């Protein structure tokens, strides 16, 4: 048995990097400390896609990596409007090859931001983001606001490592000297811990942000007695805590981006943060979901200029999320082949878009079978990044962290799979050119 320390978790955007595991017979046998129950589940592992496979007459038939990669390359090289989607639960090195492949075949490349914080990206491009690192939050913040986010369920270590419960340089007493405000529709497990819980009517985020902004800027008189189901009294208490804080922090989640008004909600959240700057230090950060969704946004931006929903069919990068996000493309039944890597649109896309996806040739690269596997035509099993393969990822505050390899595997890593597909595609194109 070997004990491995400083293991980095490849599950959510927290990217906890202080995990201790035990490895025996080339298998993670115990997660000793550091991981939350969700991260622990990831590290301990689940049933795998056991072999590369190609679907023939409706049935998946096992094959070699070479055969599956060749088939994948043939599908992609022949497609007129291919979609390359996913990229958030793998490492930046694989993402980089993905962008290269998209350029090679003139594909649309999109990532899971388009169904999580895509609207936040649009808002940030609109008005910027006064943000900071999670280290700063840990060491400085004495007021934490979770808005439309339930870290107790989605980022289980977030409060303990980085925010309300953590102890830092100027916050050595932990939550004793901090305040927690939660804004949500449901009284979630996170809301139950709050000093102030604003139980808002669903979809009224924009109004409640506007009321707080007005109050922070000194226009309390224009705010009515109730806004979006929240009393003026509670709003005033929130503003008092915001003004009194030495360093306030807003974390916002899907409650803000998944509702009507989408990016406009986020613009208002950012402007509320700016309004708080007239009184004290304040910062804001999206609660990024997958461990490397921030990373694919980085890679896609440095390679194409844009963070998600990029169309490379013109020979140059074209960015227009409402037109060419994966969902839009599928609903219009526009794409004729898809490569799905490190994500599961079968589970997480609207039914309407799955209808088209399930009918076109789909290549799936993933360590685990999932609903997308049910209709995938080529399966390429991958090594689990952070357990069986290493590589760089970006935490939700855009801090790069290197995932470690804990055990050996015969499964091929995402980066190598992508390189081999790209090589095959280039070989096909070269042959066609002759």
């Amino acid at each position, binding site marked *: 048995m070997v004990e491995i320390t400083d293991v980095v978790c490849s*599950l959510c955007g927290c990217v906890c990097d202080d995990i201790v595991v035990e490895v025996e017979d080339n298998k993670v046998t115990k997660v000793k400390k550091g991981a939350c129950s969700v991260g622990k589940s990831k590290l301990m592992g689940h049933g795998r896609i056991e072999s590369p496979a190609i679907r023939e007459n409706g049935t998946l038939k096992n094959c070699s990596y070479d055969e599956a990669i060749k088939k994948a390359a043939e599908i992609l090289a022949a497609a007129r409007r291919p979609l390359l989607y996913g990229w958030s639960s793998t490492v930046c090195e694989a993402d980089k090859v993905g962008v290269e492949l998209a350029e090679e075949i003139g594909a649309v490349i999109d990532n899971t931001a388009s169904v999580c914080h*895509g609207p936040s990206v649009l808002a940030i491009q609109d008005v910027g983001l006064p943000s900071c690192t999670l280290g700063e939050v840990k060491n400085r913040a004495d007021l934490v606001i979770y808005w439309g986010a339930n870290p107790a369920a989605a980022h289980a270590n977030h409060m303990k490592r980085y925010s309300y419960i953590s102890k830092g340089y100027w916050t050595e007493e932990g939550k004793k000297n901090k305040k927690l405000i939660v804004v949500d529709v449901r009284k979630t497990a996170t809301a139950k811990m709050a000093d102030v819980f604003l139980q808002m009517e669903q*979809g009224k985020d924009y109004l409640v942000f506007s009321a707080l902004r007005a109050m922070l800027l000194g226009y309390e008189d224009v705010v009515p007695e109730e806004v979006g189901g929240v009393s003026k009294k509670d709003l005033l208490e929130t503003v008092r805590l915001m003004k009194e804080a030495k360093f306030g922090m807003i974390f916002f989640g*899907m409650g803000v981006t*998944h509702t009507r008004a989408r990016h406009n909600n986020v613009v208002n959240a950012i402007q509320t943060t700016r309004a708080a700057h007239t009184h004290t230090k304040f910062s804001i950060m999206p609660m990024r979901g997958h461990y490397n969704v921030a990373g694919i946004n980085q890679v896609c931006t440095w390679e194409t200029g844009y963070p998600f929903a990029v169309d490379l069919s013109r020979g140059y990068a074209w960015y227009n*999320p409402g037109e060419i996000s994966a969902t839009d493309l599928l609903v219009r039944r526009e794409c004729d082949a898809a490569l799905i890597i490190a994500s599961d649109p079968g589970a997480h*896309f609207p039914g309407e878009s799955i209808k088209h996806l399930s009918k076109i040739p789909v290549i799936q690269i993933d360590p685990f079978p999932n*609903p997308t596997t*049910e209709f995938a035509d080529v399966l390429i099993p991958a090594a689990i990044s952070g357990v069986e393969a290493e590589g760089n990822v970006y935490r939700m505050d855009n801090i790069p962290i290197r995932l470690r390899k804990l055990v050996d595997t015969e499964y091929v890593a995402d980066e190598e799979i992508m390189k081999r597909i790209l090589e095959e595609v280039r070989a096909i194109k070269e042959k066609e050119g002759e």
Partner: protein
Amino acid sequence: MGTKVNLISGRTIVQGQNLDNKLSEEYFKEVATCELNKAEMERLGVAADEPVKVKTSFGEVVVKAKEKEGTPEGIIFIPMGPWANALVSGNTHGAGMPQYKGIDAEIEKTEEEVLHVKDLMKTYMK
């Protein structure tokens, strides 16, 4: 004609634990559910673990009712996943993002069975 409600979807801890295990019974038991408050369950005449049918303009799905304190009146919550998404529109309103929360829905008691994930996927492949 069912009761009119506002549907939201989102993460739960068990859903997260089974992110890489979606074809499992644990995932099915957690995600093919619909959280309601006690009063709403009584109004619908359903007990915990009994099936309810949820319909929107975009689809319908059968899930099991689950009582959840803290869920406000008129709101139902289905954990993010294939069952919730059978009810979501693909219209992104020019933002690239489907509306996963705040969907007009109807809910009613049903005798129909909850589809397992593989059978649910088959409904798209027709």
